[in-house]
């Protein structure tokens, strides 16, 4: 099934490569959730998909629809902007919650609160 039969070959190659690279980075990030062992290590892994993964997939979408509609389609920039701004907030909250629990349990591997 061909979704975009009007897409010229050169654009299809660029879009395909960008999509593949973006998906690969996201997949590696997801693998990281399994392969890394501690909670604090695991928090780093999803940022792969949220940073370069998102940028590459959104760029592929921008190129694809700009070529198909022969006018600039750039509202995907907003996706990049908001994913970049909001994912860290969630990750920081998760890390803070984990740190709070580790400290209240007296875990040795986290630095103590000096306040």
């Amino acid at each position, binding site marked *: 099934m061909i979704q975009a039969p009007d897409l010229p070959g050169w654009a299809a190659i660029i879009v395909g490569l960008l999509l593949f690279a973006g998906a690969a*980075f996201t997949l*590696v*990030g997801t*693998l*990281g959730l399994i*392969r*890394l062992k*501690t909670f*604090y*290590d695991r*928090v*780093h*892994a999803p*940022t*792969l998909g*949220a*940073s*370069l993964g998102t940028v590459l997939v959104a760029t592929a979408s921008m190129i694809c629809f700009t070529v198909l509609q022969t006018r600039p389609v*750039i*509202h995907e*920039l*907003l996706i990049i902007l908001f994913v*970049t*701004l909001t*994912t*860290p*907030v969630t*990750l*920081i909250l998760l*890390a*803070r919650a984990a*740190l709070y629990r580790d400290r209240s349990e007296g875990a040795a591997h*986290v*630095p103590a609160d*000096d*306040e």
Partner: protein
Amino acid sequence: MRRLFPFPLLAFSLFVMWVLLTGFSPGHVLVAAAVALLLPRVMLPLGWERPKIRFCRAMLTLARIVIADIIRSNIAVGKIVLMRRPDRKSGFIQLPVALRDPYALAVLAIILTATPGTLWVQHDPRRNVILIHVLDLIDEQQWIDLIKHRYERLLLEIFE
């Protein structure tokens, strides 16, 4: 002007966002202008002070450095995930910061967390120390120098 646009940057961003989302039709440009005029007023009762941002070359330099670092650390963290190195060590770093402006600290938090491999965990406003977690902690001093010289210097230039 100040009374009309209490937060000019926010108004401008809302305008651009609205136009990008709805396409460039004259009607929607008008609606976008109304949204940009009215919506930033919501911020006034919240009592946030206006960010003091200096538009300068440092912004472009910072954007370039952050983009390059995000690409580089994506590859670095990808390598860590795919090829488990037995000697890799992760850990926390206490980092004293000279930044005081809450907006500048927020930008630093987002930069550090959006970059794979570093995670902002806590900011202690009394001692002005931030706590970050690093996935590949080889040399603690190297990370401290990197953050202080690469990001903090430019953020100080932009915000203070």
